[in-house]
């Protein structure tokens, strides 16, 4: 790397390598992936378990059979929705920590509509549609609440979101143990399951529903197009990068922030609705299954680039489902998948941080002899 100082003959190429070239970024991210695996392997070794055997079990547990892969897809859909959602708020420079609660509220409203209409003569298709729609609205409203608190109340969206997460959980617990309790029962186990006709139809013999799968994929495409292909997305990113500049250029900034919340909350609410109509068929305290926080992790991991949502979410879902083999076969705790996921995010962020620091230093060194070219390098990808 000391070449940077000595060989002035190829500064442009070097710079593009260090700052803009995607292959370097790619290499660094693979490095982070390897580091994450190394760390997890060390933990496995400390726990007295063979790492390769553990990875193999996780892998087979995720894709070893059609059933297990379909279970991965079941987890993939809400993850997709949550991750795609937070990308929109990330683009607007907002940390929507409240996504977890937005999933919960989506689930609550879906359950509410199903409960209201389950004994009526309305066709199940209409009931399910209305219930899912209610879930979307519930999530969106809960998100907008966080947005309003930020815009008009001056409450940072991180704190607002956290608070609303707690409120959403408390509401769920109250409903499950109180007004929506199973007859004669008082249990945090969950509400009475809905009849099969009120669930999204699944593929034969499997748990995954083509409808929820379609909705998840559609949502990702929508977010990708919105962020990468539309004027709206461009403005949203402008707000995220520099609110003041965007405002001066005529972008209605707080409105855009609220819209981002609305959009993200809607997707999170949809995730909650799918958890109720296609996974649990009732409301349970852990209805969000932590997918909101995992979605945030994915958002950070992929540095907010929408094209990566689908594969990375699939990877996370596979880890979640596959890791259940660990306690069965190796008597290991399955939270190990969480360790790997966390380590992955951490190392990617670390490597990215190190790269940016290094870049800045190199840029400053190069900037001295060729001042004119310097600003150009800043426009490289980050």
């Amino acid at each position: 790397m000391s070449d940077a100082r000595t060989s002035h003959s190829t500064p442009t190429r070097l710079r593009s390598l260090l700052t803009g070239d995607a292959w370097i970024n790619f290499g660094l991210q693979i490095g982070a992936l390897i580091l994450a695996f190394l760390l997890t392997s060390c933990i496995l070794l400390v726990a007295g378990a063979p790492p390769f055997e553990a990875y193999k079990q996780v892998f087979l547990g995720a894709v070893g059979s059609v059933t297990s892969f379909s279970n991965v897809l079941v987890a993939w859909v809400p993850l997709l929705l949550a991750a795609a959602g937070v990308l929109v708020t990330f683009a607007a420079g907002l940390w929507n920590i409240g996504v977890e609660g937005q999933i919960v509220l989506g689930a609550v409203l879906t359950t509410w509509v199903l409960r209201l209409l389950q004994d009526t003569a309305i066709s199940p298709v209409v009931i399910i549609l209305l219930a899912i729609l209610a879930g979307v609205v519930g999530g969106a409203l809960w998100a907008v609440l966080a947005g309003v608190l930020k815009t008009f109340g001056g409450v940072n969206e991180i704190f607002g979101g956290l608070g609303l997460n707690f409120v959403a959980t408390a509401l769920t617990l109250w409903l499950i143990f109180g007004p929506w309790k199973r007859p004669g029962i008082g249990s945090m186990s969950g509400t009475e399951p809905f009849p099969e006709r009120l669930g999204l139809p699944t593929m034969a013999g499997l748990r995954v529903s083509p409808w929820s799968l379609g909705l998840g994929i559609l949502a990702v495409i929508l977010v990708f197009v919105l962020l990468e292909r539309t004027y709206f997305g461009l403005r949203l990113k402008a707000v995220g990068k520099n609110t003041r500049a965007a405002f001066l250029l005529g972008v209605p900034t707080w409105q855009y922030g609220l819209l981002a919340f609305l959009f993200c909350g809607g997707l999170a609410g949809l995730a909650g609705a799918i958890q109720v109509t296609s996974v649990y068929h009732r409301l349970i305290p852990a209805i969000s299954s932590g997918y909101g926080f995992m979605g945030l992790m994915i958002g950070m991991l992929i540095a907010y680039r929408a094209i990566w949502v689908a594969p990375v979410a699939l990877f996370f879902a596979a880890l979640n489902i596959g890791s259940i083999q660990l306690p069965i076969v190796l008597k290991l705790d399955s939270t190990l998948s969480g360790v790997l996921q966390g380590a992955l995010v951490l190392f990617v962020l670390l490597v990215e941080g190190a790269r940016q620091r290094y870049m800045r230093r190199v840029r400053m060194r190069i900037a001295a002899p060729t001042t004119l070219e310097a600003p150009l390098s800043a426009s490289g990808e980050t």
Partner: protein
Amino acid sequence: MPISRFRRVLLCGTFAALILTVALLAAACGSTPEESTTSTTIAPSTTSTSTAATESTTTTAGQTSQEFVFGMLFVGPYNDHGWSQAHYEAGTYVESKLPGAKMIYVDKANTSDRPGTTPDQLAEDLVNQGAQMIFFTSDDMKDGAYAFARNHPNIPVVFASGDGAWKDGKDYQNLPNLSDVMGKMEYGKMIAGVAAALTTQTGKIGYLGPLINDETRRLAASVYLGAKYAWTELLKKNPADLKFTVNWIGFWFNIPGVTSDPTQVADNFYNQGFDVVVSGIDTTEALVEAGRLSEAGKKVWAIPYDYVGALDEAPTVALGVPYFNWGPAYLQYVTAAREGQWSSFWQWLAPDWTDINNPDTSIVGFKKGEGLSADASAKVDDFTKALAGGLNLWTGPLNLQDGAPYLKDGEVATDQQIWYLPQLLQGMEGQSVSE
């Protein structure tokens, strides 16, 4: 721009391919140790085979035909000193008694500990690992157990504590591969109630309840019936001076942020003058808390539940433990499944009255603790003998909590009346259903 986008797509693909390669590599590298692990895990059962049978019978062919893998799902940790551990030890009991039988399990099978999963999905994971029959060992898995039994009609399913296979029950499912088993813990709980009433000095007994359903109501009521009997018949005290309060935490064990904290609930009992707390939850918080307070000089006792080893948590303040001994029953179920003799049936098994603590015959037992005085201990023994002799405390007149008649004078409760007890009994304080 289009080039960079193209690159990104390309990168995405490469990334996915790389993950796949890494995983495949891992799989390839791991294949050799896998064989060695399976053989080592089989090893213990092989040794037990050789002790039971002659050396020559342990040929490879004989072994494979003999091996029978049963899968178990525990709602809590396998070592919770309570409900789940009792089932886990039953699994090891079957392994030790039935050569070739091998247990695989998933513990903490609940949506808080394993988010995104369902019991039927976890059971399928066990089947993928070779399980030939599945034990769902918690009421919390009811819907999952039924769904699994329905979707896998060829796999024998045991649902512990359930009534789905009870033809005369209210929740009969008509699933030919589903069987239920439950112990008549009412007896163990009545003995616990006697021990509690004989020990309390304040006349206030607290019941640390899990969630509210038919099972937990009838078990709490059993403790009360035992306590009332000891209070009025053995101690000849005024029934009005006995206070029996039930506090429910909302689930079988503590889920932080979701249920009430059982340690807190037990602590509240002790601080309000309840000197004996009888636990109805899966874990041992009440006993641990009693031990802690006793060390601080308070005269308090506790009665844990479910698992015979629970007393070890704080032996000196434990009056005893009503416990499940699922092993013999599970041995019967696994043997039936292995021999292809499976049929759907429901069993509500009484203790073996010749010796309720016989590990090979009695599904329900009561192990006395160090905290029980010599006098009380003798009275507990007498009471157990009286139960064996036919004493039935589920005899009228008994009213429900709201005063509605439950059993007329002299009327003996039927199995249905006990199993589906709709409310707590008159004289008990606490919620009968959630509000």
